[in-house]
């Protein structure tokens, strides 16, 4: 990029400048200049900082142009000038009927994307009338037991016209099967269905811990589903490889980057092992990252992620279709950065985090509500969160040009540094025997807990300041935030409904399809096709998961993974 003569001059000038700067260094405004992740940042970045990409050729290789390999500058040629990111706000609560009303409201406001949150019993594969579901039904999302609930959620919504994202992991195949069964009933061909299934089980073992089955059969569920969808549901994103939860569980930015991509490469390898051609499924892989508070660190993270993904997909996995190289991702602002103290300050945090996602080139964005450390978000808080995205899109001017931060000495140096640090983690994971082995021995889990504890100690020692929490605090805040409560009636209604559906369905068909699922689970057939047949017969999420639990066993964390640090 720079000629040797230029760099020589540059160094001479810098050394001269250093002498002058030295006069001011005795005084410091902050004790330490470091990122949220604990990475020390240099006082100044110069052309020397990015001299690594020294020649013209490697500059093209590393930074290049947007819409072109290695996609450091973004996945589209013209980015937000052609199309803004999708403002996709995650929602779902109570009964299927309540969620259906919310979806109709969103569509009436001009939205074309739906994003479904499921309650914990659904995520864990229990029906609403199961004893373990007590107190959890309809709380963190909508309750789904059988196809009858999915029919209610999408009642009056043509599935050929909307894109639906579903945040579910262990039983993801079941929920997608039910979604397909609804489409079938509506007469919508599977080829027209669009949306994203989270379906990322590896990060569940690592971070969010909503797992049911052991890793090996869980990966089989995913590859079976990818195989089916690559043939029959070609427009549906079969997986959203998620760093969000890894970060929320305590990871640093580099850990989020490295562990998420390592998970992604594991899915690619599993699918290739199962006999799929990489270009057959890779274009339907999507990603999901966190937007934390350290502005430039986050931007560098997104840029490094795209570059690493493109390089590996092309060079290591031999993908030939450019669509297999490019990393599309969703972003959500960091729930773990929000404070219960002076909660209005969270609006500012979310705005800055969202801006980093946009400057990092995200394809879609969820902005958190200011009140979510206190309770489920209220309507007003949700509206402010959405308006924040609109202000960024329409008022700040950041969408006017593609990747405005490219070429910044700091941003490019930090991007290079994060890529190098991630590579070190990939080596370490490989040395330990791969992603599954690292999960078993609790390597990821301990890395996260250690980082979370270190962060907490920094706060308590005031080495790190959080406004309103350990500095600039107020004695009597008098917080008056309206709290959203889920009516206890939801649980009663939903339990009664699943009992009614079970009583009215064709019991013979239920028995036959569940038996077929058992045989497939024992053998080598495609589990997704069996789950689709079960769903059509109104088998419940709990019944299908019970069969798989009986055949495959349930996963519990190893002692090593439970250690606090």
């Amino acid at each position, binding site marked *: 990029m720079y000629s040797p003569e230029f760099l020589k001059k540059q160094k001479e000038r810098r050394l001269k400048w250093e002498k002058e700067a030295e006069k001011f260094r005795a005084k410091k405004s902050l004790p330490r200049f470091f990122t949220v992740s604990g990475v020390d940042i240099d006082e100044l970045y110069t052309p020397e900082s990015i001299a690594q990409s020294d020649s013209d050729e490697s500059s093209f290789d590393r930074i290049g142009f947007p819409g072109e390999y290695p996609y450091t500058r973004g996945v589209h040629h013209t980015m937000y000038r052609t199309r803004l990111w999708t403002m996709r706000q995650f929602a779902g609560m109570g009964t299927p009927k309540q969620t259906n009303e919310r979806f109709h409201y969103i569509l009436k406001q001009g939205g074309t994307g739906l994003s479904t949150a499921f309650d*914990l019993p659904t995520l*864990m594969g229990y029906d609403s009338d199961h004893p373990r579901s007590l*107190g959890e039904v309809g*709380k963190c999302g909508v309750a789904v037991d059988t196809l009858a609930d999915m029919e209610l959620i999408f009642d009056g919504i043509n599935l050929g016209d909307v894109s639906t994202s579903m945040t579910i992991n262990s039983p993801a195949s079941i929920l997608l099967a039910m979604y397909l069964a609804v489409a079938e009933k509506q007469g919508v061909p599977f080829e027209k269905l669009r949306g994203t299934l989270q379906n990322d089980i590896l990060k569940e073992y690592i971070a969010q811990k909503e797992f049911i089955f052991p890793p090996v059969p869980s990966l089989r569920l995913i590859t079976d589903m990818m195989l089916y969808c690559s043939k029959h549901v070609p427009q549906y994103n079969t997986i959203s490889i998620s760093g969000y939860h890894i970060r929320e*569980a305590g990871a640093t930015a580099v850990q989020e980057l490295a562990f998420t991509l390592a998970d992604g490469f594991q899915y690619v390898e599993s699918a290739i092992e199962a006999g799929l051609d990489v270009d057959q499924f890779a274009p339907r892989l999507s990603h999901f990252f966190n937007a934390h508070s350290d502005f430039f660190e986050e931007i560098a993270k997104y840029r490094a992620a795209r570059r690493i993904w493109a390089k590996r997909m092309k060079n290591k996995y031999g993908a030939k279709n450019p669509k297999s190289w490019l990393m599309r991702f969703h972003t959500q602002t960091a729930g*773990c950065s929000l404070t219960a103290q002076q909660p209005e300050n969270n609006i500012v945090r979310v705005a800055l985090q969202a801006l980093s996602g946009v400057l990092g080139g995200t394809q879609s964005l969820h902005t958190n509500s200011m009140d979510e*450390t206190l309770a489920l978000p209220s309507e007003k808080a949700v509206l402010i969160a959405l308006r924040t995205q609109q202000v960024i899109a329409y008022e700040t001017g950041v969408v006017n040009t593609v990747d405005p931060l490219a070429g910044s000495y700091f941003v490019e140096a930090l991007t290079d540094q994060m890529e190098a640090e991630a590579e070190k983690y990939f080596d370490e994971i490989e040395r330990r025997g791969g992603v599954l082995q690292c999960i078993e021995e609790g390597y990821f889990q301990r890395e996260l807990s250690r980082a979370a504890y270190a962060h907490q100690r920094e706060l308590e020692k005031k080495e790190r300041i959080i406004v309103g929490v350990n500095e600039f605090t107020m004695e009597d805040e008098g917080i008056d935030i309206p*709290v959203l409560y889920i009516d206890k009636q939801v649980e009663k209604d939903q339990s009664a409904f699943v009992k009614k559906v079970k009583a009215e369905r064709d019991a013979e068909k239920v028995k036959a399809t569940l038996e077929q699922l058992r045989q497939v689970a024992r053998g080598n057939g495609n589990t997704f096709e069996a789950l689709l047949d079960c769903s059509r017969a109104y088998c419940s999420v709990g019944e299908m998961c019970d069969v798989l639990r009986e055949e495959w066993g349930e996963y*519990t964390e190893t002692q090593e993974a439970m250690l*606090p640090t």
Partner: protein
Amino acid sequence: MTEQKIRVLLAKPGLDGHDRGIKVIAAAFRDAGFEVIYTGLRQTPQMIVDAAVQEDVDAIGVSILSGAHMTLFPAILDELKERKAEDIILFGGGIIPDDDKAELEKLGVSKIFTPGAPTEEAIQFLKCEVEARKEQ
């Protein structure tokens, strides 16, 4: 005579898997010199109280972020009553609205910590509470 170490059982009840908070608390208690037994995820109230009685702990700490706190805390209190183990301190943390917090503390939960509470506060609370119960 050397002071007896405080024994505390930590657990995640219900279906929620978010364990960042409870692990930070476990590390902080350990570093404060407590004996910590972490029984892990998806423990039923019966499992938690069984383990607490068996391990003869001074206190049980649970973390709930799923909104199921008004079901799970009372179930643990009932179980403690049934096992005549009401001398064991029950405390917890999570996303718990103020009104619920007040009601739970009225029902017999010794203390609810909400986001932003320093670990030192939980350590001091437990030291005082265990001391107070021993004097009774």
